[in-house]
């Protein structure tokens, strides 16, 4: 009975992923080899891809921007992680909290704010022009790299921090005792030990950067990447080429899949870090140096948060067309609430429903992965990894194409939005549940049963209670990221199911900057408040939950 329940649950989860992810994505794959009208086999899409520079350049742009962003994240994140781990810089937990914020806040708000500041008619650009200083264009590579490094560096920073904090002190002491200087020990012992962890963080940065849709839509302009190009080919008013969109999607999936394989199977096997017995020593800096190191770190943290302050401030300013006037006004909010109240409701409604469903499926999945190990659970482990390699835009295109006709028509409904959110967020919930369960000793259940509590009640009284903190913080993180989801939403929404992100994006595109700022601010507040609550009440797995 008990094992049948879990077998049925496993099959159900498989079916959900098969119908709502694997089949639609396979459909993209076959679609990329078919002609648009008759569906006959063709290689035309792939031939065009290599023939027209606008296509293959988008692949090149994706890879190059991903690599530069990952390198940039390492340049910032590695020294910062080392300093926070090994030096007595001030307010370490504050640093960690502030560094996770950019990962949670919508990246396209950062892109929007930087355009307001440094774009063609930007506030800083104009100010500098009055002094005769001309800065280069922010559009294209510089802007994207600026946004990606400042918003995604935390993947590398947090990984480096946990890596250097987990190197057993005695291993470094062994290096020194064998006659190696401290600097040499760092290069020959500590860094090689932590390097796989750092590279894992860099791969996460790389993947997030190339899957990102909002930032290049706002700031890339002449250098679109694969995601943007696929979106344009799919939705263009000039005449769509769905086959080409599928082909571009396949290339993107191949890159992300290769990155994930590298991370999961190559780097994770080289993970030498074990639970440290002796915590590494924290170097006591002289007061001056301590102030300097802390100052540099906080200056950078503030820099990464500037866009969000800017969006907040602008939302309270008076607007005339695309121009802000430095006077306090609630005009943007009045406009947002009166004209676009529905999208605000939609965002909250969709995020809440999707999170609930993701938890409902994700927690049992985590349980199956850890406590019901079998060949099926291993397969499930791989299946739930797939959403990580499928960018939101691509999943959106896949779902809308697949459910456009046939026995189930979902295109244009809110259900399809929920589906795409659940597919993308459920793996996070499953992973975080699994990692909690890994740490829970199975003999806790047995102890409860031996004390006369039935297995069902034990699950509720022990296992569930112990998991709850982690599940709730995982759910909050999912909720927050769904609120700020743009990529698949923009593809899947219908006029009556628009969301805050879509409204904000359209505000940017149509130069309705007040509306964009107002929606940005509502999103920032909707993100920051739950996150602060989560860190306050469930501070135990600070930051860890958002990483793979």
């Amino acid at each position, binding site marked *: 009975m008990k094992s049948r329940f879990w077998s049925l649950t496993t099959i159900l989860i498989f079916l959900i992923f098969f119908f709502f992810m694997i089949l639609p994505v396979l459909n993209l794959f076959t679609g990329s080899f078919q002609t648009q009208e008759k569906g006959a086999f063709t290689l035309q899409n792939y031939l065009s891809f290599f023939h027209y520079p606008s296509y293959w350049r988008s692949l090149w742009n994706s890879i190059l921007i991903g690599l530069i962003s990952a390198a940039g994240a390492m340049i910032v994140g590695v020294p910062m992680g080392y300093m926070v781990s090994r030096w007595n810089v001030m307010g370490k937990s504050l640093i960690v909290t502030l560094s996770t914020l950019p990962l949670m806040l919508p990246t396209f708000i950062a892109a929007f704010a930087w355009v307001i500041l440094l774009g063609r008619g930007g506030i800083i650009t104009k100010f500098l022009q009055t002094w005769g200083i001309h800065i280069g264009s922010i559009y294209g590579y510089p802007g994207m790299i600026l946004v990606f490094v400042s918003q995604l560096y935390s993947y590398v920073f947090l990984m480096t921090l946990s890596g250097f904090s987990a190197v057993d002190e005695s291993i470094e002491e062994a290096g020194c005792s064998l006659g190696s200087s401290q600097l040499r020990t760092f290069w020959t012992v500590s860094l090689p030990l932590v390097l796989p962890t750092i590279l894992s963080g860099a791969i996460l940065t790389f993947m997030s950067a190339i899957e990102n849709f909002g930032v290049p839509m706002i700031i890339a302009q002449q250098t679109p990447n694969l995601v943007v190009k696929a979106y344009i080919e799919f939705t263009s008013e000039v005449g769509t080429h769905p086959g080409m969109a599928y082909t571009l999607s396949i290339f993107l999936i191949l890159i992300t899949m290769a990155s994930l394989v590298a991370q999961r199977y190559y780097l994770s096997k080289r993970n030498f870090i074990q639970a440290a017995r002796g915590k590494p020593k924290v170097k006591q800096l002289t007061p001056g140096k301590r102030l300097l190191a802390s100052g540099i770190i906080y200056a950078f943290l503030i820099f990464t948060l500037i866009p969000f302050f800017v969006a907040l401030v602008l939302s309270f300013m008076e607007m005339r067309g695309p121009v802000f006037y430095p006077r306090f006004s609630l005009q943007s909010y009045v406009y947002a609430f009166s004209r676009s109240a529905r999208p605000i409701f939609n965002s909250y409604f969709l995020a809440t429903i999707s999170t609930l469903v993701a938890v409902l499926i994700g927690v049992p999945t985590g349980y199956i992965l850890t406590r019901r190990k079998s060949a099926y659970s291993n397969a499930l482990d791989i299946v739930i990894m797939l959403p990580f390699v499928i960018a939101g835009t691509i999943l959106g295109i896949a779902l809308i194409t697949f459910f456009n006709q046939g026995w189930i028509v979902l295109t244009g409904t809110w259900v399809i939005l929920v589906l795409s959110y659940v597919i993308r967020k459920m793996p996070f919930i499953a992973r975080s549940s699994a990692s909690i369960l890994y740490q829970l*000793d199975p*003999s*806790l259940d*047995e*102890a*409860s*049963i*031996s*004390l*006369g*509590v*039935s*297995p069902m*009640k034990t699950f509720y009284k*022990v296992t569930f*209670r*112990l998991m709850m903190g982690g599940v709730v913080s995982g759910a909050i993180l999912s909720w927050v990221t769904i609120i700020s989801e743009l990529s698949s939403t923009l593809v899947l929404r219908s006029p009556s199911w628009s969301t805050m992100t879509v409204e904000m994006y359209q505000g940017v595109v149509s130069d309705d900057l007040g509306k964009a700022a107002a929606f940005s601010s509502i999103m920032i507040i909707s993100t920051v408040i739950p996150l602060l609550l989560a860190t306050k009440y469930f501070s135990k797995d600070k930051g860890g939950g958002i990483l793979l």
Partner: protein
Amino acid sequence: MSIQIVNVTKKFGNLEAVKDVTLEVKTGEFFTLLGPSGCGKTTLLRSIAGFNQPEKGEIYFNKKRVDKIATHKRGIGMVFQNYAVFPHLNVFNNVAYGLKARNFSADEIQPKVSRALQMVRLAGMEDRFPNQLSGGQLQRVAIARALVIEPQVLLMDEPLSNLDAKLRVEMRSEIRELQQSMKITTLYVTHDQEEALSISDRIAVMNHGVVEQMGEPWEIYNTPVNRFVAGFIGTTNFFEGTLISEQGGQGIVQVSEIKMKVSAHSPCVGEKVSFAIRPEAFKVAQEITEAERSCFLSLPGRVNKVEYLGFMTKYDLELCRGLSVKVVSYDVLPQHLRKTGETIELCYDPQRVLIC
């Protein structure tokens, strides 16, 4: 409450972890399953607890068959190797957990928990959470939690193996005292032979899923039934040789280049004999009396290694080429201490030879 285990077999795939084991734990007895890791002792304990279902055999508590009854209805108390103290409950609620499951009222729970905590010397710690406790304290909570429900049977799965050596010795005598004062039938699993000898009324030595020998601690130590038991319990010197003469229950065995005396039921002359002598069965040098010297064969041994432990000295002695024995001497007078390379006379009572 007694426990009867009748022909129990438990398989994991093709591996028979427990093979046709039959044993009885008497009411109020402290019974220990002792054996190396993987010998099936924990599997058997978990079958009794109901955490696994044996393929064959029956388990009875006081003549009442329990092996088809769910764990939570068996009325057991269990103590786990890694404590398994609920991290989300404080000490009081951990101990009260089983009482609440039995629907005791708050008024009844309070004094019961207090008494249980007093018993394990944790009075005043009610509000602490597990992460504020040491390993020894955690195990005390686990013991109090198992005892407070007044179980019919107490099952303990290597409860001391996660503690450090000194605490382990302290805790085992505490466990023994608690068990004696409550007269509770206890089944204890350990791989530590010293622990088993010191704490148990009876011991079952297990290996490869079968019970090799069952008996009181002194029986297990002094009359091991086979080579495995002799080797697993304590330190032993094994010898193999040929019986060259036999007279009045005393035999002479040619072992390598030397002759050794053995006593009792030896086989026929000319046959192979294998036997064992404990290190402390040997007497060395000054400890040997004139009577012993004349009665028993004495042997010369060259000192290969000395290990001075204060209250005793361990010697590795070479009797002849390729034949070394471990010997323990409690003669701690400094002038009697021998050095490497010296020769010592040693002697043993053939009665203390274990034929195996």
